[in-house]
């Protein structure tokens, strides 16, 4: 695309957004005002959450073909922000030299729990990549400020958070804000090709599915002297439900979401089992090391979902969907019926979906197109994973709508380094662990 064409398109876009803003909202689009009057066609980005994934997402955004610039950064921790800034401005970064596209003076690097409120107004597009517990707050604020959004999965850790995202997603639609959620299989060639064919009926109606995320688990950051409990949990966010939602939510959502996507539906209820058998130390906070959940859809079909974080065990991250006329093997990227291959995706045609999701988002924004509304689907798949956790923690059957409408909120009331997080260790440093049959959800 020639630059002139982009500009023409962008002007049209400007007119449309102005109309929308005037028609729908009393509050002005402050940053879009800057965006529109910008002397050039630079798309300005704010990064909220500067960890490994945030750095990766920012890099992918800056590697997109559009005229983009990173203008603001926010993180709870100064050291993470600085490390991220140094990586993005490094000239010998193997993933690409994007230094010229980073323009974040010190005054635009914000640290602390409220850093996002200061970074967002400076940008047209925000990347939300903090631990998932904060996502509903950040997403709602970004929508309020009229920003286009890339947000990582999952999008919440509790039903109240999912509800908040669903409400903001409605407003984002009204404002025609592009929202991409980092469930990158939707942007991966093999899944897209399989999806088309499954929709065309090549394996018939989907009647069941098996989905897996079994692997070794993740990192631990040992407790440091002088750390408050809030800082400790923030540094070890993976092991605390208010921040992470358990690994069934944080990682396994990818596989659960595939079944939801291909099925075109979300489960109505779930029951399952899980626990902590190996990862029992206090450094592993409160989450389980395995879950096995039976999700049921309205038409009676079942998704068997298993996820495990236990070192040295059989590793598998995949999805297999069974239809009335055949089976889809996502990892093998094929559709098979009675041993006969109906379709095989050519794996040499696979793309980097993490890059593609940014390429497509920024291309749409540059052209003034409204193309992506991933938030609702992302929120409902997040709710599915949370439903699974509620089922394994309680050992009961949990219904989707009841859970979603329960208002269950596990987030802190105060965000401050000296505030107590919602779960606290006992005198030996251990955290309370959910016990099936004892822990109550919605009973």
């Amino acid at each position, binding site marked *: 695309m020639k630059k002139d064409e982009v500009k023409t398109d962008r002007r049209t876009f400007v007119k449309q957004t102005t109309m929308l803003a005037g028609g729908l909202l009393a509050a002005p689009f402050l940053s879009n005002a800057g965006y529109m009057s910008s002397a050039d066609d630079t798309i300005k980005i704010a990064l909220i959450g500067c960890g*490994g*994934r945030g*750095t*990766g*997402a920012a*890099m992918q955004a800056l590697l997109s073909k559009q005229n983009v610039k990173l203008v603001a950064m926010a993180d709870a921790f100064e050291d993470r922000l600085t490390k991220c800034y140094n*990586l993005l401005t490094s000239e*010998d*970064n*193997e*993933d690409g030299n994007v230094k010229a596209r980073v323009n974040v003076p010190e005054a635009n690097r914000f640290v602390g729990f409220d850093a996002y409120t200061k970074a967002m107004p400076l940008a047209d597009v925000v990347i939300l990549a903090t631990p998932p517990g904060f996502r509903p707050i950040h997403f709602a604020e970004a929508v309020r400020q009229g920003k286009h959004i890339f947000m990582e999965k999952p999008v919440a850790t509790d039903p109240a958070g999912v509800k908040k995202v669903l409400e903001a997603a409605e407003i984002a639609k009204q404002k025609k804000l592009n929202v991409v959620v*980092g469930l*990158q299989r939707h942007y991966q060639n093999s899944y897209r090709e399989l999806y088309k064919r499954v929709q065309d009926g090549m394996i018939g109606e989907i009647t069941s599915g098996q989905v897996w*995320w*079994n*692997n*070794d*688990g*993740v*990192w631990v950051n040992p407790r440091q002297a002088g750390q408050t409990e809030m800082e400790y949990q923030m540094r070890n966010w993976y092991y605390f439900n208010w921040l992470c939602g358990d690994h069934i939510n944080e990682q396994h959502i990818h596989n659960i979401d595939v079944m939801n996507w291909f099925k075109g539906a979300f489960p109505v209820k779930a029951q399952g089992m899980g626990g902590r058998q190996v990862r029992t130390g206090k450094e592993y906070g409160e989450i389980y090391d395995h879950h096995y959940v039976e999700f049921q859809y309205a038409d009676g079909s079942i998704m068997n979902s298993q996820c495990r974080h236990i*070192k*040295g065990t*059989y*590793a*598998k*991250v*995949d999805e297999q969907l069974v239809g009335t006329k055949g089976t889809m093997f996502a*990892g*093998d990227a094929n559709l098979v019926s009675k041993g006969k291959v109906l379709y095989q995706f050519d*794996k040499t045609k696979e793309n*980097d*979906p*993490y*890059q593609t999701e940014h390429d497509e988002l920024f291309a749409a924004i540059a052209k003034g197109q409204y193309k992506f509304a991933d938030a609702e689907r992302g929120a409902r798949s997040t709710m599915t994973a949370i439903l699974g956790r509620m089922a394994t923690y309680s050992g009961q059957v949990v219904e989707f709508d009841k859970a979603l409408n329960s208002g269950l909120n596990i987030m802190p009331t105060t965000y401050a380094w000296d505030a107590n997080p919602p779960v606290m260790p006992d005198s030996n440093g251990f955290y309370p662990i959910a016990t099936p049959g004892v822990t109550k959800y919605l009973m």
Partner: protein
Amino acid sequence: MLIGGWPLLAQDFKTYDETIPKTSVTFKMVAIPAGNFTIGSPFSEPGREEDEGPQKKVQVDAFWMGEHEVTFAEWDAFFRNMDVPQTKPIDVDAVSRPTAQYIDLTWGMGRDEKQPSNSMSQAAAIMYCKWLYKLTGTFYRLPTEAEWEYACRAGTTTAYPYGDDASALKTYAFNKDNSGNKFHKVAQLKPNKWGLYDMLGNLSEWTLDQYSADAYAKLADGSKDPLAAPGPRYPRVVRGGSYQTDAASCRCANRISSLTDWNKRDPQIPKSRWWLTDGMTIGFRIVRPLVSPSPEEIDKFYARYLK
């Protein structure tokens, strides 16, 4: 290279089995005699690529080479060894082991102890060698590109170690035509004349060399133990085809340059120094030079590749 070295007597230079200390895991090291060979391929070789020439005469000193690619049994003795600290960055001065895999990097192909270990970076493969050296006192490393091709040819000058017929490769190497798009247990097919299995198939194998397309043009005829010193992390040389490679490309002379693309699906930055998210066809085998460098030289050697 004799400085501080301990040359072995000729009668000691024979194939041997090593047991990884504190485990029951063994591996065989095949004695490869010193000799001369012609590196690269002639213009007349079907499928030849430009980086395989001009052909040069090369002298290679004696070494031992793993009879097959490093298996999961061997790799896991290192990777699952709880006594070795697990670090996100690679520990240049000590031994550390790779971080947990974010996803299953065998991609469902299995993790049998006889299957070859895959998806590791060159640095991770070299850290394995360093770990093994610290444990056994024997210097292990990756082969140079020249050592690899010399061992693969096993005295032959044809496209394949058994001749020029691509269709016969299936009896020697798992390639695209006979792999079912998966790697297989090591040493299931015929070895080459020197007793090395799967050189041209199953997994492609890391070597030590920095890749450049004109490497042989820069090489003097008759060079002894050439090695392109390590520069940037990419590109480095990988040799031998894999279960995904078509037979025409699984030739002794074929050279593969590593790509940043081999980690394209790592969503984090910095990307893993240990793993390749898109290098499922990559593995390695180890060598031991007959003449070991001094402990100081060995430490320096590993540090150059791990920094």
